């Protein structure tokens, strides 16, 4: 069985189509393994080699990777929720109810999105504290620390804009209170609140604005900054591992 599978794989690898996609030979040597990483769009921002140390669970508890995993889950479940959700008052509330009680598996997807969002905020904070206590903000990681702060803010904004979308009492009052905090800004506060809500009250315009921010603008920004974040981890010499003695070196 195994030999037939191997033979089939060998056959597949010798086809012209396969060779046109994967131009290097089989990954048998370090050189071809490196080429496999360099020549692949989805792998090239990962390091070719990692220290065994940095693969240990205790190195970072995979907190960053888990945050990325949650982001991917949230994108997938979010896109699926969009198929049933109209960002209009009062339809939005009824669509949310339909997702919970009428649509097949809708309650599963909605809860996955909701719980996933809560977990992501939690994990992103945990990740930040972990990096902070490991000294991961020190040179040469300063820039990536700031990128991480941007990602934290994007996560919080995504969480906040998503909070309005069920269009229930909790959503309405959370955004009423939150945008009143904006209007406490000196001089421009009321203008910023007016533009953020598209009016004086949390109404249809606000719902649509928050929806567009939540499903297009903020996810695209997050995607961009996540790319930079992972790229910089590699360029700055991998994740911060090791004892206090060699902190900053690795």
């Amino acid at each position, binding site marked *: 069985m195994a030999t037939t599978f191997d033979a089939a794989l060998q056959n597949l690898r010798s086809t012209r189509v396969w060779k046109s996609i994967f131009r290097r030979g089989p990954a048998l040597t370090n050189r071809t393994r490196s080429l496999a990483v360099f020549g692949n769009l989805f792998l090239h921002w990962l390091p070719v080699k990692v220290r065994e140390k940095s693969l240990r669970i205790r190195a970072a508890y995979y907190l960053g990777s888990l945050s990325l995993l949650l982001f991917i889950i949230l994108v997938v479940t979010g896109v699926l929720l969009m198929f049933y959700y109209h960002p209009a008052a009062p339809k939005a509330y009824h669509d949310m109810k339909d997702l919970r009680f009428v649509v097949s598996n809708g309650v599963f997807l909605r809860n996955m999105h909701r719980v996933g969002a809560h977990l992501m905020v939690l994990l992103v904070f945990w990740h930040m504290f972990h990096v902070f206590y490991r000294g991961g903000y020190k040179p040469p990681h300063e820039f990536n620390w700031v990128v991480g702060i941007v990602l934290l803010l994007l996560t919080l904004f995504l969480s906040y804009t998503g909070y309005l979308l069920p269009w229930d009492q909790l959503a309405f009052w959370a955004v*009423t*209170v939150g945008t*009143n*905090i904006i209007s406490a800004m000196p001089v421009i506060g009321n203008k910023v609140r007016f*533009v953020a809500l*598209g*009016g*004086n*009250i949390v109404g249809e*315009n606000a719902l649509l604005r928050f929806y567009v921010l939540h499903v297009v603008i903020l996810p695209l920004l997050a995607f961009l900054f996540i790319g930079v974040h992972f790229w910089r981890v590699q360029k700055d010499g991998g994740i911060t591992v090791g004892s206090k003695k060699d902190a900053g070196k690795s």
Partner: protein
Amino acid sequence: MSDRNQGENESHAIERPQLSRRDFLNEITVGALGVAGLGGATLTYQYFSPNVLFEPSTTFRAGNPDLYPVNSVTFLQDQQVYIVRMPAGFYAVSGVCTHLGCITQWKPEANIIACPCHGSKFLPNGKKIEGPAPRPLPHYAINLTADGELQVDKLQVIKTDQVLKV
């Protein structure tokens, strides 16, 4: 040889422009992009500020003055306004807490207006007595229409000592 040197000296004698052509064009380009960017930002800001709003009217009629007994505080749920009638006359007090915009409640047993969110407390005339609210509840302009009904304008905030005598 000497001619050439002389020529060079002459060209040095002419005052050279401070900017090279490249620097000049670069600055013009950056300037133009800056102006265009500023214009774009202004247009975008204008685009995001709606000119027509489909929000509830800020002016409303509160019915006949006889509906309100003297020394009473009546909360109009739909308008989020208290119509207060004292012996001196009528005034309209906002029902929206000045802290973070929650809707306050009239507590007749304690003779106060209380906010459920963060515990701010106000007197029936809007004066703040406790809590995180930074300002007293504003008074809205109140007057009588030609057919004798009370009318409140929520866009017009008036001084607290102004009352409507009916």
